[in-house]
C-alpha cells in the first residue's frame, strides 16, 4: 500500500531522514518506533506532504505521492493525525468532525445552505464521535476539553476522512489510561479495514497492536520485522530499547 | 545631466538614511517585542517639534539637537509604560488599533499646543554651505551630514547587535523569545531599552529633518508608511534588512520622482506624462514591495526561525 524508497531529508548538515526504505502492507498495523529525535514525525510529515523530501520516492496505492499536493492526499485516502494536538479550538467538537466530512464530500464551497441543516453530515459525525467515546461532548467548544479528550477529537477527525492509510503520530500521547485503552481497542477493531502506520512510545500499545514494527534511529531504519523478532533483535536492544525499560514493560 | 543624476542619487541615499533612522527602531520593536507601533512616526514628529521649539528659544540648532533626544526618550518612556506594555500579549490587530488611537491623541494634542501653522528650523551656520565632491560635483553640506549620521548610527547598531552581550540577547530574542526568558534576561528592561533607543533614533531623524522640511502635524505618518515598506522589504526584525530596504526605497523614490517625467515625456504628450509620472513614481516603492513579497513572502533578509 505504501512504498518508501531511499528517502532522504536534510536540514542543512543534519540528515533527519537517511535513506529510508519502508513498505507498509495493506490491511496491517505497522508501528514505527525509535528514540526521541529519530525522525519519526519528520517521516510522517513527508508522507503527508507537510515536508518535501530531499531525495527518494514515496508510492501510495501505486501513485507517485510526491507529485501530489498535500491537500489532495487525504482525498486519495492518505490521512494523518498530529502528535501535537491540532484541532480547531473555537469550533465545537462535532463541527471539527463535520469540517472533515464536508471536505471529503467536496462541500467546502457550499456558500448558502446553513451548515447545521445537513442532518446526514451531523449524523455521520455523531457516529464517529460515539466510536471515540466523545458523544457527550459533541456540542462543547473544543478549547474547553481536557487534553486527553482533544486527542480523541484528533482521532475522530482522522477517521472522518475515511482513510485507506492512516498515519497516526503518537495518538495516545497525553491520554489517560482509560481513554488510551479505549482507543487501542478501537484501532484494533479497525485492523484490516484501515491500514495504519503508527508512531508510538508506549511499548504495550506497540506490541499489543502492531503486525509489524520498524525501528528508526538517527533517521535510519535499523530493523523492520514482526514484533516478536524485533524484541529479540540485539541491534535494536542496543540502539534503542537499551535493556531495562523494554524488559520491565513487556515481561 | 550627470551632475543631476549624481545629486539625485545622493538625495536618494540621504532619504534612505532618514528612513533607516526611523526604521531601525521600528524593526527592532517589531522583531524583538513583536509589537506593531503605528505611533513610531509620532516620535519622529516629537523630535522635529522639540528642535523647532528649543532651537527657536535658545537660538542654537545644536542645543536643540542634543536636547531633542531626552525629550523623545521621555515621551517614549511614558508611551511604553502606559500603552505598549499591556499590548505585549495582545494580537497585532489590538496593537494597530491602540497605537492608531495614540496617533490621534498625539496629533491633536500637538495641534492644540502648536497650532496648524508649520514651524521652521534654521539650518546651522556651520552646515549651511555646499561642498565640492570629487572636484566636480557640488552638494549641500547639511545633506552630507545626514548621510554621515546615518552611517554612524548603522555602525553603532551593527556593533551593539553583533559584538555585545545585549546584542546577542536581542538577536536570540528576535528568533526565539522563550530562549531568552529561560536565560534569565530581564525582558521588561530590555524591552524598554530597545523602545527608548529606537525612539531616540526616530527623534534624531525628526530633528535633522527640521531644517529640510516644514515641521507640521502629520509629518510622522507619511514617513511611517514608507518605513513599514522598508522593513517589510528587508525582512522584519533585521537591521541589515532595514538598512537595505531604506536605501532602496530612498533611491527608487527619489530617482523615480526626478526622472520618470522626462523619461515618460519622450513617449507621451507632456500633460499626461507629468500626471502619470507623478502617479507612477509615488507608486514605485509600493510596487517594489509587492514584487519583493510575491517573490519572497517574508522579505529579503528573513530572520531565521520566525513565522510572520
Amino acid at each position, binding site marked *: 500500500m505504501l512504498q518508501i524508497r531511499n528517502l532522504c531529508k536534510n536540514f542543512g548538515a543534519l540528515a533527519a531522514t537517511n535513506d529510508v526504505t519502508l513498505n507498509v502492507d495493506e490491511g496491517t498495523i505497522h508501528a514505527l518506533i525509535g528514540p526521541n529525535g529519530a525522525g519519526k514525525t519528520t517521516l510522517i510529515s513527508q508522507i503527508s506532504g507537510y515536508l518535501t523530501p530531499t531525495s527518494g520516492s514515496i508510492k501510495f496505492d501505486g501513485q507517485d505521492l510526491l507529485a501530489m499536493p498535500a491537500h489532495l492526499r487525504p482525498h486519495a485516502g492518505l490521512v494523518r493525525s498530529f502528535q501535537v494536538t491540532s484541532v480547531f479550538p473555537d469550533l465545537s467538537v462535532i*463541527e471539527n468532525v463535520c469540517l472533515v466530512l464536508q471536505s471529503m464530500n467536496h462541500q467546502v464551497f457550499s456558500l*448558502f*445552505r446553513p451548515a447545521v441543516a445537513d442532518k446526514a453530515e451531523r449524523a455521520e459525525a455523531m457516529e464517529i464521535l460515539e466510536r471515540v467515546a466523545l458523544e457527550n461532548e459533541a456540542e462543547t467548544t473544543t478549547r474547553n476539553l481536557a487534553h486527553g479528550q482533544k486527542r480523541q477529537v484528533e482521532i475522530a477527525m482522522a477517521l472522518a476522512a475515511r482513510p485507506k492509510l492512516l498515519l497516526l503520530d503518537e495518538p495516545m500521547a497525553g491520554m489517560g489510561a482509560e481513554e488510551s485503552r479505549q482507543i487501542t481497542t478501537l484501532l484494533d477493531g479497525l485492523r484490516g479495514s484501515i491500514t495504519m502506520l503508527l508512531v508510538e512510545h508506549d511499548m504495550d500499545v506497540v506490541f499489543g497492536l502492531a503486525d509489524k514494527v520498524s525501528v528508526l534511529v538517527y533517521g535510519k531504519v535499523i530493523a523492520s520485522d514482526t514484533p516478536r523478532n524485533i524484541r529479540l533483535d540485539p541491534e535494536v536492544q542496543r540502539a534503542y530499547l537499551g535493556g531495562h525499560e523494554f524488559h520491565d514493560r513487556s515481561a | 545631466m550627470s551632475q543631476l543624476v549624481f545629486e539625485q542619487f545622493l538625495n536618494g541615499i540621504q532619504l534612505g538614511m532618514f528612513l533607516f533612522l526611523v526604521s531601525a527602531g521600528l524593526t527592532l520593536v517589531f522583531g524583538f517585542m513583536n509589537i506593531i507601533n503605528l505611533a513610531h512616526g509620532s516620535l519622529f514628529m516629537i523630535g522635529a517639534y522639540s528642535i523647532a521649539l528649543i532651537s527657536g528659544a535658545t537660538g542654537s540648532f545644536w542645543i536643540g539637537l542634543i536636547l531633542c533626544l531626552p525629550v523623545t526618550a521621555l515621551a517614549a518612556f511614558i508611551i511604553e509604560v502606559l500603552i505598549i506594555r499591556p499590548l505585549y500579549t495582545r494580537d497585532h490587530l489590538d496593537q494597530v*488599533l491602540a497605537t492608531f488611537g495614540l496617533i490621534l491623541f498625539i*496629533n491633536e494634542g500637538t495641534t492644540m499646543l502648536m497650532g496648524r501653522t508649520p514651524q521652521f528650523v534654521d539650518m546651522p551656520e556651520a552646515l549651511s554651505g555646499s561642498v565640492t565632491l570629487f572636484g566636480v560635483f557640488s552638494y549641500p553640506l547639511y545633506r552630507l551630514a545626514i548621510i554621515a549620521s546615518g552611517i554612524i548610527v548603522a555602525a553603532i547598531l551593527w556593533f551593539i547587535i553583533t559584538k555585545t552581550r545585549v546584542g546577542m540577547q536581542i538577536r536570540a530574542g528576535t528568533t526565539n523569545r522563550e530562549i531568552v526568558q529561560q536565560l534569565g534576561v530581564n525582558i521588561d528592561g530590555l524591552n524598554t531599552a530597545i523602545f527608548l533607543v529606537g525612539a531616540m533614533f526616530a527623534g534624531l531623524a525628526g530633528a535633522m529633518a527640521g531644517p529640510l522640511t516644514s515641521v507640521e502635524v502629520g509629518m510622522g505618518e507619511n514617513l511611517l*508608511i514608507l518605513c513599514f515598506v522598508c522593513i517589510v522589504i528587508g525582512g522584519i526584525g533585521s537591521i541589515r534588512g532595514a538598512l537595505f530596504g531604506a536605501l532602496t526605497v530612498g533611491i527608487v523614490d527619489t530617482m523615480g520622482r526626478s526622472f520618470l517625467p522626462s523619461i515618460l515625456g519622450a513617449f507621451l504628450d507632456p500633460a499626461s506624462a507629468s500626471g502619470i509620472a507623478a502617479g507612477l513614481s509615488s507608486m514605485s516603492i509600493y510596487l517594489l*514591495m509587492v514584487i519583493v513579497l510575491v517573490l519572497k*513572502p517574508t522579505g529579503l533578509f528573513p530572520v531565521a526561525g520566525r513565522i510572520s
Partner: protein
Amino acid sequence: MISERHLPKLMALGVLVLLLLPLMLNASGSSYLISTATRLVIFAIAAVSLDLLIGYTGLVSFGHAAFLGVGAYTVGILSFHAYEGDTFFGLPGTLSGLIVLPLAVALSALVALAIGALSLRTKGVYFIMITLSFGQMLFFLFVSLEKYGGDDGMMMFDGRITLPGLDLNDRMSFYYFCLACLIAFFWFCRRLVASKFGRTLQAIRQNEARLSSIGIRSYTAKLLIFVIAGAGAGLAGALSANHTEFVSPALTHWTRSGDLMIVVILGGIGTLLGPVLGTIVFLLLEEFLPLILHSVGLDLLSEHWRFVLGPILILIVLFAKSGIYGLLFRSRE
C-alpha cells in the same frame, strides 16, 4: 448583558428603527441628519465586508479602502463620460443604475481577485503590509488620473445614478435604497458565515496549517472570501460616490482603511452585527462628540475631539476585548 438568544428580535427592532429613522428625523425637524444616516448605512456595508476578512477568516487587510475607490471611480468615470457625452475606450458613459452598480461591484471583485491572488501568498504582518501597499498603489493611481480631477477628484454634475421607478436624487429614496443594500448584504453575509464555507473560513482563522491535512486548500477559500469582501466594499464605494455626488482619491487613503478597521474592531470582530454597531458609535462620536464637549464647556476639546477619541480607542482595546458587541451580548454558552 443580553443573551444572544434575543438577537433575532433585537435585530428586527434595529431594522425597524432604521426604517423609521428618516420619518423621525423629519418630524423632529432635523432632516439634515438623513444625510448622516445615509453615510452611516453605506459605511456599515464596507465595515461588514471587512469583518468577513478580519473577523471570520483572520485576514487583517489594511487596504480595504482600495475597493471603495474602485466602486466609486466606476460610478464617477461613467458619470463623467455621460456628462461630457464622449466615450471611454470606445464605450459611452451612463448613469443607468442597472448598468453602473453591477459593473462597480464586478470591477471591485475583479481587482480584489488580482490583489488577493498576489497578497494571499503572504501571511500575518506581511499580509497587513502588502494589502496596505496595494491600497497605496490604487490611491496614487487615482491621484494620477488628471482627466478625472487628479488629487482634487471630480463632481458628478448630472447627479446620482438612475433606477427605474425610484428617484435617487430624493434623499429619502436614496436613504432607503442604501438601507436595502445594507440589509441585503448583511443577510447575504449571515448566510455565508453560517454555511459550510463559513465554517471553513473560521477553521482558517483558528488553525490554517491543519487544513491541508483534512484535504482543504486554504488559499482558494481565502481568495474567494477576499473577492466577496472586495465586491461588498465596491458596492459601498459606488453608493458613497452617489451619496456625495463626488469622487476623489481621499476615499482610498490608507487612513480610510484604518477607519474601517477601527469600526470593525470597535464593534466586535467576527460578529457582522458588531461592525454595524461600531459604525453607529464611530459616526455618532464624530458627529456629536464635539457638541457634547462644547456643551460641558470644554470648547478647546470640542474643536479637537480626536484628542478625546484617541484615548477612548486605547481604553476600548485594553479593557473591552470583544468590542461593543462583547459589552452588550453574552455568548450562548
